[in-house]
């Protein structure tokens, strides 16, 4: 896979077409749905009226220039947005048909079902590799009847890290490379068995090799879960996602310009701004 930036929409579409899969081909419950989501930071209207349906078992890529509200949007999907003191929002986010913002919702249970992988790998520094993977069980006080060792191996295998770390599970996570740390973070979020995994530019700090490994991991994971990934890398969006949503802030609040199957978004987008962006003419 070439890593240069003069990406041709058509070649991207080709990659995407090979990857595309009809939603619902793997029925996994009813997925996640954002309805008319707005977000504010104080009086700054950062995101306006985003409605987006993430069908179960699909991978959706969010693309768009910096500052258009992709991170803000993804953080409204698992109620991390509210940690910013000035934050406000409007709209609904439905998980399996239920609004996660409904009164009386246990927000910790929501975050258990909608996991998150951050831009910068953030393994817990005081814990070993093994402890990191199982940290979620401890933090969420889950009594798992599963064998811990089996779970550990399964999560690390699904995250594509098992072979590299199986002999040093007791070592501290700080000694891993950036790419390994990020896969460890993915393994960590898998241990609590979320239905949805949100990834905010998970590869932006990684080398191409590690990036490809994480993309493999994403493809594997998408068989069993719903994935939303923010990325600045068009090839990555084309390689891993079934659907692509293009966000843009044209002076005002960020909006979703267009969403569609990834191959169509890269071959014949409906909106000219999408066309310009995916062909590298701006952004």
């Amino acid at each position, binding site marked *: 896979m070439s890593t240069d930036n003069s990406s041709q929409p058509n070649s991207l579409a080709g990659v995407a077409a090979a990857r595309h899969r009809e939603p619902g081909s793997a029925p996994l419950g009813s997925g996640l749905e954002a309805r008319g989501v707005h977000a*504010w930071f104080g009086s700054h209207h950062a995101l*306006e009226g985003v409605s987006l349906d993430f069908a179960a078992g699909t991978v959706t890529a969010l693309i768009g220039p910096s500052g258009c509200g992709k991170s803000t949007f993804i953080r409204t999907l698992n109620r991390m947005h509210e940690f910013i003191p000035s934050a406000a*929002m409007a709209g609904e986010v439905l998980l399996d048909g239920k609004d996660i913002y409904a009164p009386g919702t246990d927000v910790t249970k929501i975050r258990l079902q909608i996991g998150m992988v951050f831009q910068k790998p953030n393994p817990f520094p005081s814990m070993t590799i093994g402890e990191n993977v199982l940290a979620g069980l401890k933090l969420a006080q889950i009594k798992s009847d599963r064998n811990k060792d089996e779970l550990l191996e399964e999560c690390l295998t699904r995250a594509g890290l098992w072979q590299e770390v199986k002999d040093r599970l007791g070592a501290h996570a700080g000694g891993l490379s950036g790419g390994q740390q990020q896969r460890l973070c993915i393994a960590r979020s898998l241990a609590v068995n979320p239905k949805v995994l949100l990834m905010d530019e998970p590869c932006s700090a990684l080398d191409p090799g590690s990036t490809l490994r994480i993309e493999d991991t994403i493809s594997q994971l998408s068989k069993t879960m719903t994935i939303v990934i923010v990325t600045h890398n068009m090839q990555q969006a084309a390689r891993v996602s079934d659907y692509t949503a293009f966000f843009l802030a044209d002076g005002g609040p960020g909006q979703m310009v267009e969403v569609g199957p990834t191959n169509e978004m890269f071959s014949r987008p409906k909106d000219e701004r999408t066309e310009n962006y995916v062909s590298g003419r701006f952004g």
Partner: protein
Amino acid sequence: MTTTTIPHHETVYPKRPWKATKADLIPVFAALAVAALLDYAVVAITPMKGKLAYALLFFVFGAGFQMALKWKKLGRRAAVDSLAGSVAISGAVIAFVPVLSLLETTIVKGAKGLSLGFFIHDMSVANYQSPLSEGGVVQAIVGTLYLILIATAISLPLSLLTALYLTEIKGKASGFIQFLVQAMSGIPSVVAGIFIYSALLLTTSLRGSTIMAALALAILMIPTVTRTAQEVLLLVPADLREAGLALGATQWKTVATIVVPAARNGLITAVILGVARIAGETAPLLFTLGVSNKINWNPFSGGQSALPYYVWSGLGDGTELGIDRAWSGILVLLIVVLSLFATARIFGTRKVKIK
């Protein structure tokens, strides 16, 4: 270039669905009210008596009811979370109540003697048995401001440089200096006074003056400011230092233009903590300050007054009027110190200018 019009949305208002609503709060307050009633009843019918019993039982009932509410609504994990929250709130209350009570006593007892005259007169026209309408604290205010200013001027550069040595240069003597700083912070304040007295006053013809007392106070201030400055400098991310060095800067330039400004607010806190450490100290002044009942503008010679010393003298006088005067002195000291802190915060906090 054609632009598709973005569909117009009806006006949507920002909401905070994560904030507790009135409907959520009603059971919370109802539970607290029931806890208060139960508290009252239990104290009435059992041998437990006194404010402490009220407070303790209110905490137990209140926290218990909140836990039960959470448990019913969200389960055991949420109940434990609620208990931890209740313990934290109670801890804050336990720590804060004595402070409030202290403040209240000071204001109630001190305000009686305050008048404009109290702030502008000195003690050359009165003594500690005079009514509080005669004489005042102006010389002590001047003295205290002088002491704080000079002690800060001496200790701030020394402390900052020491902290920079420990965090930036990390020289061979670091361990030893760290040990000394630690040991210095344990010095009883009277020892600092005696040290200056025996080292500088006893053996020379120098007499007690502002500068001598300020030196004694600086001894107390240095370890506090150094330790705090060190901690805040350590919080500056290593990336920033490397970014400066990678631009070709020398270590000195990096520290002066990047590290220290990044730690600015923390360094101001360090100075505030240092001033708080010394502002109310009396013991180091006893042998070093001399005495003066008038304003002495010359910090290098002649005795000086200071607010803690003024308070100490009033209390030492033992008469009712003397003690009242001491309370007023305490209130003035509080006002002076709080105004200094407020000034430091207002002028020290960098305002980010957005053009």
